[in-house]
């Protein structure tokens, strides 16, 4: 090709060689606009300020909470001994004595106040004092047994904890009434404790210990394994364990803490724990009513979400089906009827699902009826629109054929139109069933019932991230199952690999299977 030929080609196709500047620079202009818009948005939402104020430490802790839990022994300094408490709803049950808290006991002498002994026994800490006497409490290792009430201060001799060692992986906290030794790896720091006034390290602090003011509380970090606070009257340690605590049975269950084999043998052959019902029934009841995980409630709410999506989509399909015939201009030749039905679909669709959900939550009260109605209203619009578009795209030859043999109008629809569109209709309904399972979760959170609300409540407390993760896994599982069912059915229906999201390809294809 010589220069003349090139010039010739260029002269014949000027727009291919000298495109308008707008076309030539479309890509850089587009990218520039996107960058400018990004700047505008970061100003509009003041992104920098929000990121600066964000609490990133919390993010790590919350993420860790998804798959792990903490246990908090609370070691209090007394004059010559220690007391070890666990938080009130400890995951270790009512009488914790974990092997990672080593205790050294000794006979000590101490003054007992002039208070009746039973009161001393229940009045262990301010936290526990609110409890009813019979309630399960964290027992003090050195709980004084019930002596008769002495009227005057009295010296008693008893067995009490004089030293405790908390092990956190390669870290260790050794506590005695006057001295706390913290070890992490090869580094060791010793703190002198002046009870009620100060915490003083003997050596300079490494970077994993923080003390904001001399003498104040020292914050010790052991990474993922836990953390501790050395205060002037107590040492609080948080030991983190991987996994979900008490997932099957909670600490109030008689099956709690038993290995699987023992639980199984109890259920199959054990003597009745509760005389009124079998062990299997008791175990099932304990699982459903697990106080920490609330399995029964979570499953019920999940079922509500599934039901919301299912009923909403089915009812929407049933209502949209006849209306779509009214809206399709090749089926119903009346322009007014077409327009009215189509605008009605647009109205239902454009009033957002959120608005319907809020309205029906007011109307029906919180629960699945509201969510179901919201999905029903929105999807009647969407499915009606899609159905009528499918109807308008049908092949007219089949209809003409049926009509030419003298069939009634109803017969023409039944044998000329329906076989062409029914697989498309069903496939679209199935697709919306699947996608509504997802949206039902979200509108649940505004009060329309189902797992969404439960999820939202669990998140707002900021303490139940493991429960959140549990529910997320359940939702993912349900979505996955329904995805598979729906795409399997659609594949059967279309006789081809129906692409889950690409409806246009599906509707362009002639339907291979007819539903009689």
């Amino acid at each position: 090709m010589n220069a003349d030929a090139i010039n010739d080609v260029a002269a014949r196709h000027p727009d291919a060689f000298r495109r308008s500047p707008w076309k030539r620079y479309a890509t850089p202009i587009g990218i520039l606009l996107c960058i400018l818009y990004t700047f505008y948005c970061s100003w509009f939402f003041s992104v920098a300020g929000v990121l600066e104020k964000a609490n990133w430490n919390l993010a790590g802790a919350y993420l860790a909470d998804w798959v792990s839990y903490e246990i908090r022994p609370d070691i209090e300094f007394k004059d010559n001994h220690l007391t070890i408490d666990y938080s009130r709803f400890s995951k270790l049950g009512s009488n914790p004595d974990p092997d990672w808290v080593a205790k050294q006991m000794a006979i000590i002498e101490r003054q007992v106040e002039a208070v009746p002994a039973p009161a001393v026994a229940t009045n262990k800490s301010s936290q526990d004092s609110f409890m009813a006497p019979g309630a399960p409490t964290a027992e003090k290792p050195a709980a004084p047994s019930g002596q008769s009430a002495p009227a005057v201060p009295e010296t008693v001799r008893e067995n009490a904890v004089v030293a405790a060692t908390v092990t956190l992986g390669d870290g260790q906290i050794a506590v005695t009434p006057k001295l706390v030794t913290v070890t992490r790896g090869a580094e060791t720091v010793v703190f002198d404790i002046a009870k009620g006034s100060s915490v003083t390290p003997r050596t300079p602090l490494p970077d994993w210990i923080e003390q904001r003011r001399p003498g104040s509380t020292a914050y010790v970090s052991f990474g993922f394994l836990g953390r501790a606070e050395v205060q002037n009257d107590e040492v609080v340690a948080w030991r983190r364990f991987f996994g979900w605590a008490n997932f099957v049975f909670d600490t109030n269950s008689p099956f709690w803490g038993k290995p699987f084999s023992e639980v199984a043998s109890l259920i199959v052959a054990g003597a009745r724990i509760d005389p009124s019902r079998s062990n299997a029934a008791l175990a099932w009841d304990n699982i459903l009513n697990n106080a920490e995980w609330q399995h029964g409630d979570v499953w019920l709410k999940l079922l509500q979400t599934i039901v919301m999506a299912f009923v909403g989509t089915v009812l929407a399909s049933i209502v949209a089906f006849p209306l779509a015939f009214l809206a399709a201009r090749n089926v119903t030749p009346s322009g007014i009827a077409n327009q009215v039905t189509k605008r009605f679909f647009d109205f239902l669709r454009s009033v957002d699902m959120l608005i319907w959900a809020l309205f029906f939550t007011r109307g029906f009260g919180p629960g699945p009826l509201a969510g179901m109605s919201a999905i029903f209203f929105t999807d009647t619009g969407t499915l009606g629109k899609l159905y009528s578009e499918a109807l308008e795209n049908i092949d007219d030859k089949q209809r003409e054929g049926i009509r030419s043999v003298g069939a009634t109008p109803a017969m023409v629809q039944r044998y000329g139109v329906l076989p062409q569109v029914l697989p498309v209709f069903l496939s679209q309904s199935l697709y919306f069933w699947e996608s509504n399972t997802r949206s039902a979760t979200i509108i649940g959170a505004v009060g329309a019932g189902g797992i969404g609300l439960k999820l939202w409540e669990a998140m707002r407390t900021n303490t139940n991230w493991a429960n959140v993760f549990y529910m997320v896994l359940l939702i993912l599982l349900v979505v996955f199952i329904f995805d598979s069912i729906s795409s399997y059915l659609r594949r059967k229906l279309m006789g081809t690999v129906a692409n889950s999201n690409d409806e246009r390809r599906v509707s362009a294809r002639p339907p291979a299977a007819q539903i009689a």
Partner: protein
Amino acid sequence: MSATEIYRAPALSPEGATVERHWRDLAARRRLYTIGGLVFLFLALSGSLWFANETNAGKFFDRLPHVADFFAELKPRDWFDPARALFDLPSPYDDGSLKFDYPEGRVYLTQSIYIPEYFHRMVETLNIALFSTLVGATFGFLLCFFAAGNITASRWLRFFTRRFLEIVRAFPEIVIAGFFLAIFSLGPIPAIIAVSIHTVGALGKMFFEVVENADMKPEEGLRAVGANWVERVWFGIVPQVLPNFISYFLLRFEINVRASTILGAVGAGGIGESLRLSIGRGHEAKTIAIVFLLFCTIVAVDQLSAWLRHRLVGRQAFAYGRGE
């Protein structure tokens, strides 16, 4: 089928009779399946309705008359009041309560020019949707080529990219929003992050399907003259898939406007929050104003996007609701 009973072949050959018999068997079985399916659907539907009614706070038939009550309660004092609420004009009924404090929410640009509160909120929601669609599309664009079988040869890379996109798409938006609400406190940023993350998965999937359907001839031409991977993708694939990408982008934007409204209602700012508050507090004029504004915006966004998509790719990507 009645049509076959009208027409009877006078005499069938033995082979013909066998075919006829098989066809009848087939039709009978298909009819049985259809009836069985319908019965199953009916049972499932009635069971579900019963269950939903049992677990709802109010029973359907008890509450049904009161659903209309709520719409009646929405009637404002006079029909100009929603307009005043919409444009933040002072109301004659102002009694100092939250119900009629329309001018309170004005966002002043200068001394005298202001944006009415709900318009500002609506812009916020639209910005959340557009910005997160943009972020999601950017990452989806970058990832989609690694998931496409005709561009990326490594089976593992493809596998992991696809699984990543799937997980990101299926993860409930509300959990991501809730998690970042805990870190950032209330505001639109958690909604942006949640919607963006979901959009990466959704658009990434649409994008790589488009790429897999692309014509490979330009790519082969570039390969023949020794172009590297980036050049082949940028000059061979991107120009032909870009109209479809933009069309999906617009479709996603429509969906994200709705999603960010809903996330707003659970605490992430924007018009959704205003709507939830005004419905919850029973402020009828404000509710009508917000619903009207939201309705108009969604219609406008849908129409604009449909028009643009029509211009870009013709009728082929012309359906709302694809690609959740």
